[in-house]
């Protein structure tokens, strides 16, 4: 039975560590995948428009500005969401510990 108790305790600790690994490493991978996906979408939206259709060539300047805006906007939104993602568990731990000790 001693083995069983040790096993349960060790499993719990490993699941807890696993939670933080999933949250931080897994979460970072997901955000990176989303960022690459967004980049691919923007690239697809604006890619080769001027070469294939000469009429659109006139709009290439504004299109480039729009493309840059979308990149900046998308990157900012993602960075804000990623930072929020990173601080959620840390905030919760801080609130619990400080509230408990107060």
């Amino acid at each position, binding site marked *: *039975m001693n*083995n*069983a108790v040790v*096993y*349960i305790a*060790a*499993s719990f600790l*490993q*699941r*807890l*560590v*696993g*939670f933080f*690994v*999933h*949250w931080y490493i897994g979460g970072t991978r*997901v955000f990176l*995948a989303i960022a*690459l*996906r967004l980049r*691919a979408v923007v690239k697809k939206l604006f890619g080769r428009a001027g070469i294939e259709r000469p009429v659109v060539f006139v709009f290439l300047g504004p299109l480039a500005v729009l493309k840059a805006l979308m990149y900046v906007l998308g990157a900012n939104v993602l960075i804000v969401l990623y930072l929020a993602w990173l601080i*959620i*568990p840390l*905030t*919760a*731990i801080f*609130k*619990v*510990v*400080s*509230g*408990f000790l*107060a």
Partner: protein
Amino acid sequence: MFGPLYRKPKGKDVFFTDPLLEMGYAGRFFVRVVTSSSIIVQSVVTLMALSIEVGWVFWLGILSSLYLLDRLIHFARSDEQFPLAGPSTHNIALYLSPRARRAIVSAYNKAAVLGGGFYLNLARILSETAAVSEMLSRLDIDSGAFNSKLDAYLVRDLVSYKDHDRLIGEAERLVFVAFENKTDEEKDLDYANLFAALGGIENEQLVSLFDVFEFGADDLRKVVPFGKLVGRAWVSRLAWRIRGLEAPPLSAFSCAILKIEQEHKVKIPYSSIIVAMNHGDGVSYQEKTSSALGLIRNAAIYASKKGDDIVRGEDVGRVE
């Protein structure tokens, strides 16, 4: 990550050891009761914590709910995923899906208490699962008849050995066969891998049982992707899409077959898939499978229109 729980045998780089199998029956039962009930207790306590207006208790509820959500998302995932990475020593137990691991422990328990041997007990446990029913039906085998025959073998063998070392040895052998059989695109070992591995075990009763239904290790290996995807093909497709990657060829092909079945409400046995592959054009695997899928889709439409719920080999040949 979960390495410290497992004892590494001397001189082996790839091994199988599971602390649950090293415990006594009472220990295993205790672990099972505690782990099953802890999730329910934690969920209730979390809900209560979230409804309390004391700041730190509320945040504890938030933290606990995130932990529970993580457990829910990863509940079907093995502790580690193939390919073997990191240190040079690997415990195959870490690559088993939680349910496959439970099936092994359950088969061990039954064999140790009631007899019947590890392999037959495991076959009986697995034969009740949707994955194995899918594999059998794909091979045109009636799972009801298979289970009845399996029960007869199990009853006949109940007086056999129950000793710990032999049963552990059998579990280890089976997991190694499953590991050797797995394809490069598989990330873990699940019910389907264990059942297919049973086909590669030189066990008198199993060989005789599989001979009755005229299938063997090769047939079982071919239908593993269907067993692994049944009921969760959409989850698999979604997971690949989220990662922005294309599904590996074998999974993509099996998913496409399952989708055709769902759309046209027909069953496509493996024998018909073989016919389609033989008739399919193309040189590369991708071209050949794409052509075969076209043939299967047309045959499914044909079978569905004539009111048949099975796409037969001759249907595939006819619509070519």
